[in-house]
């Protein structure tokens, strides 16, 4: 994964507001079913996505090969205090890519 994941989190929100978060991680998401010159290309996908807020998990996804390349997720979460969102994507080889965003809540 050469490119960095893209994450959209509002920079500020009101207390108790439900905010939308959008994430996209550049990844081929090889299904393990494609063939190149008659040989199967081994499976290589991101199988886990986790979003944490101030260390506490707020959203996670168990991903199978049926999720498109460059997996995109949009979801909501309620914020009640300022803090940092941490996102992590883990692939089949156990490699994890991380991103984080700060949000101010008032």
């Amino acid at each position: 994964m050469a490119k960095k994941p893209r994450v959209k989190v509002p920079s500020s929100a009101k207390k108790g507001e439900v905010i939308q978060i959008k994430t996209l991680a550049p990844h081929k998401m090889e299904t393990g079913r494609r063939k190149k010159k008659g040989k199967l290309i081994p499976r290589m996908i991101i199988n886990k996505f986790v979003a944490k807020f101030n260390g506490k998990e707020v959203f996670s996804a168990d991903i199978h090969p049926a999720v498109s390349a460059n997996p995109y997720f949009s979801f909501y979460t309620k914020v009640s205090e300022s803090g940092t969102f941490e996102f992590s994507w883990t692939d089949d080889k156990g490699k994890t890519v991380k991103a984080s965003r700060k949000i101010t809540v008032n």
Partner: protein
Amino acid sequence: MATSIKHKSKTIARRDVLKAAGLGAVAVAAGSIFTSEAFASPGKAKALLKKLTGGAEVKSGRVHLKLPEIAENGRTVPINVKVDSPMTSKDYVKAIHVVSEGNPNPDVVSFNLTSSSGKADISTRIRLGKTQNVLAVAVMSNGSVYMAKKKIKVTIGGCGG
């Protein structure tokens, strides 16, 4: 090209396709990827559903599944799942599973939510191998299970080839 092969292999038994010497790798690939037996059947999806829900009774309603009616490209199909829920610490959506009845594997993606999610509304993009039913299953915090089902036409499959 893929569609014509798919059509052909439906009329010829898979065994015959594989047996026929001299057929190129394309035909073999078509035999293994495009015949219905290589794909998950509704039965397989049902078995997965049972595993995901722990055998709880699956009710309809509360889940809103948004999919295009026709996907020209099965490689990336936008999908949105919304679940009616107050999302309080006592009553919230614990998990949302997306299950395919026509892909090689019925698992698509599972989302884990918490009481602080605020809103059960998730969008992503998925791969679909052929025209099929897609199921969205929501597991609530009290263990009850709700499901929505939608048929989608897929012009070009997105699972292999």
